[in-house]
């Protein structure tokens, strides 16, 4: 097994088929990377939504407490 091309320029040219080969590999790389990055972004959005929800609940709870203190039954 040996390297099939004379040098880097030769490797990139692929004997005239370079553009086809590299576009195919490039688009594949982008698509696969997208499949891995999407879940990471989705998880961040979920975390942010959860934090927002928890802040709202916290505020509601402390508001109720203040109300109970202000007007004793």
């Amino acid at each position, binding site marked *: 097994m040996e390297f099939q091309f004379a040098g880097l320029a030769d490797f990139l040219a692929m*004997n005239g*088929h370079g553009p086809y080969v590299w*576009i195919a*590999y490039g688009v594949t790389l982008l698509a696969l990377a*997208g499949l891995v990055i999407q879940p990471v972004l989705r998880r961040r959005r979920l975390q942010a939504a959860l934090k927002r929800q928890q802040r709202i609940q916290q505020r509601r709870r402390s508001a109720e407490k203040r109300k109970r203190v202000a007007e004793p039954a």
Partner: protein
Amino acid sequence: MAWQWFHRLGSPRWFYWKTGAWLPWLAIASGLLLSAGSLWGLGFAPQDAKQGDSYRIIYIHVPAAFLALAGYYIMAISGAIGLIWKMKLSYLVMRAAALIGAVLTFISLFTGAVWGKPTWGTYWVWDARITSMLILLFLYIGVIALSRAFAREQVADKACAILALVGTVNIPIIYKSVDWWFTLHQPATIKLTESSSIDPSMFYPLLTMIIGFYCFYAWALLLHTRNLVLQREWRTNWAQQALADRTPAADR
């Protein structure tokens, strides 16, 4: 006792913590195999006598098409498991498989079109193999669209599972299309029942890429399914702890 693992697997919580440990290994395996296979296929495998260097696209085209088809089985079978055993988790696997399958089918169609130009002189022909792969893409997109079309997720799950099962009709057609209607697409290179029509010097890098794509598929499927689990269970205590990157003692 023998079926305990099956019921456990149906528990989103158990699934989430169990699969977390597999992710780094799958990531490393797919990264190594895909980069080694690409380098091998692009630089070290010999040139094809008829097609020149454009044939090097085979090292992504064939594995992507392999997984696009295998992924359809995974989607349809998880849909069936959901319908039969009412297993929530398997519907989530089905939803994850639909997105990944659509991307892989797109990759195989796109790389095929780019490969077709220098080899056949055209990007696209309405050949039986290509047309049936396009139908596969539409089936995947159909399942994704259907999964978002209902307000109640349980209804969407069932509708998607039925569409996925009906669509399996297309899979044997894709496999056999190169033999039944032989027009332009070349017949299968790797055969299970007889010897393959490919030289070992080209076959080993291709095999490396196929195994790499399988690892990548498993990795992506777990990533997406785990997210869908958290999204659906996010009101529960364990899911909120998972989102905060805390492992409860019971799950460690």
